[in-house]
């Protein structure tokens, strides 16, 4: 085995979702730095970094560029589903591995991809399991106009409908668009129980700001009355939104920086401060970090970066990363993950409101999901709730 093993890092660190790409890249680079300095690994992982700048036309060319020469067999990269789908044919053509760390909409299981982010039964389903009993069954669905928003909103509609609720509206914006006023007007008119936000980057930030502004004259727009809930909003974007506008709203993720676990405290202590002023630590950073470790540990175990050997060494073994014990299934190529509900608190990331005690196996095609059972579980929770309804509509 060569002592220098190239690893492609393909992230848009500029462009509309550059903040997320930056966190994924920083996490992976931090892990590579540690691995390369650790004698327990008798090889070095050499990063080959490319930045498509959020431009979908650049992804294929830069993937080919990373793989040129045939030495690089592993790429950690891509955030959006549209960019992942764009490079999968090239990943398959060269028979290399893509390590995908972001949450996505499921309905995919490529043998050349290792999925370490959450899929719908690990994000939208548990999120709605928490949000519907707390706030109600009238949902307004918004998103950026591509497959992530379409599909997560479709699943949301299935969950809401199964529970006997209503979708009060569903609207999409093109990438980069900040034209959010129509959405605010719709909310003002239809008064939903909550808003499911699947907007990306600048569109999402503009929506939070407009929602906050609306709240200055109409208390319905306060998060206690009608929260914005997301499956992909993390610490790394709160500064872009502004803490004043983000405060009180909800998100689900397999990791939050404020998790009060021993593993997380040790991890954060070993990490030290990220820059000056220090950047927060998001699940994108942590998943970039732990994914690089999955790769390094598999290479160490099998003594090669051959993808079949790496997969054999990777699958179905126990890992103890900062986000808690997990394993990657040989059946689905997906990681088992916990799901937490976080509420944005002022200037200090998320308060963790609830946590599933165990990790959930990924079910990328929702093959074992039953909307009728989901609705029955929600009804049982609602029946048990002796507390008065949390909503206070003035």
């Amino acid at each position, binding site marked *: 085995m060569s002592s220098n093993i190239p690893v492609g890092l393909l992230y848009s660190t500029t462009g509309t979702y550059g903040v997320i790409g930056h966190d994924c890249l920083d996490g992976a680079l931090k892990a590579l730095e540690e691995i390369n300095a650790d004698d327990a690994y008798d090889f070095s992982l050499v990063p080959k970094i490319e930045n498509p700048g959020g431009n979908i036309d650049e992804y294929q060319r830069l993937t080919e560029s990373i793989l040129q020469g045939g030495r690089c067999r592993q790429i950690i990269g891509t955030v959006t589903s549209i960019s992942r789908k764009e490079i999968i044919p090239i990943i398959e053509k060269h028979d290399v591995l893509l390590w995908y760390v972001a949450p996505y909409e499921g309905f995919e*299981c490529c*043998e050349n991809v290792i999925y370490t982010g959450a899929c719908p039964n690990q994000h939208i389903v548990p999120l709605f399991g928490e949000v519907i009993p707390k706030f109600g069954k009238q949902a307004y669905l918004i998103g950026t106009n591509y497959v992530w928003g379409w599909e997560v909103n479709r699943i949301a509609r299935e969950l809401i409908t199964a529970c006997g609720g209503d979708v009060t509206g569903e609207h999409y914006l093109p990438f980069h668009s900040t034209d959010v006023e129509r959405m605010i007007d719709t909310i003002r008119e239809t008064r939903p129980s909550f808003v499911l936000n699947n907007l990306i980057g600048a569109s999402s930030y503009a929506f939070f700001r407009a929602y906050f502004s609306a709240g200055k004259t109409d208390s319905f727009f306060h998060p206690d009355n009608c929260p914005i809930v997301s499956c992909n909003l993390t610490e790394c974007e709160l500064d872009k939104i502004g803490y004043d506008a983000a405060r009180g709203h909800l998100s689900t993720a397999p990791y939050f920086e404020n998790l009060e676990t021993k593993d997380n405290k040790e991890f954060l202590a070993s990490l030290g401060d990220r820059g000056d002023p220090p950047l927060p630590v998001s699940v994108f950073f942590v998943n970039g970090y732990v994914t690089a470790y999955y790769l390094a540990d598999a290479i160490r175990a099998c003594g090669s970066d051959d993808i079949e050997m790496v997969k054999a060494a990777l699958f179905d073994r126990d890992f103890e990363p900062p986000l808690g014990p997990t394993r990657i299934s040989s059946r*689905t190529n997906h990681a088992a993950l916990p799901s937490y509900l976080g509420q944005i608190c002022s200037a200090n990331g998320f308060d963790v409101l609830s946590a599933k005690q165990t990790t959930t196996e990924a079910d990328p*095609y929702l*093959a074992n*999901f039953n909307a009728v059972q989901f609705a029955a579980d929600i009804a049982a929770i609602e029946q048990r709730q002796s507390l008065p309804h949390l909503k206070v509509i003035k």
Partner: protein
Amino acid sequence: MTTVHTTNFLERKAAILHRKDDNIRRLERQLDLLGMESNVIWPEFDLGASPADVVFYDGDNGYDGIFPWPKGFPPVPLIALISTEAPGRLEWILSQETSAHMVKPIQSSGVYSTLVIAFSNFERRTVLQDQLRALETRVTQRPAVFRALLMIMEQAEVRDDEAFAMLRSAAMNKRQSIENFCTHFDEQTARMLCAKTAPDKKGMQ
């Protein structure tokens, strides 16, 4: 967005008529992910022993008589696995009323969408066939409707549209289609019908 229900294939059974190679290994893996059972039947095609909800078959090597049903009348969706695109082969695949196809080599993407399309096509075809059969039956009963119409027009001295309204109303009261009602329609039925509706008619005039 109108699709609310996630199409689910949990516990459905797939029969695969294809030699077991890497294509089939990948196919079986994807079917397993969808919660389906799969059964490779090769080289003896005995579908009777393994009733399935969907049949994948080797489109490159299929031949008449391979399936235990009349040609073109599959009881479940058929999915052809093909690598040759020779027109003669495609014609044969179409003649089997195949609901969808996958091009070999089978990849890890495409199995779910092919199943969704195959089941949807098969269901639509079944519904259309049922509708077609019902319409054909109605067409063969048209002469009876025509005869009944003439009898009423003659006996009640009404126009065709009025006669038809009387027929439709009588059929509805009997909870029958007009065609079925007319099949057993004779002079006596016509007299009774006209007698019943005559006072109304006079009243209307």
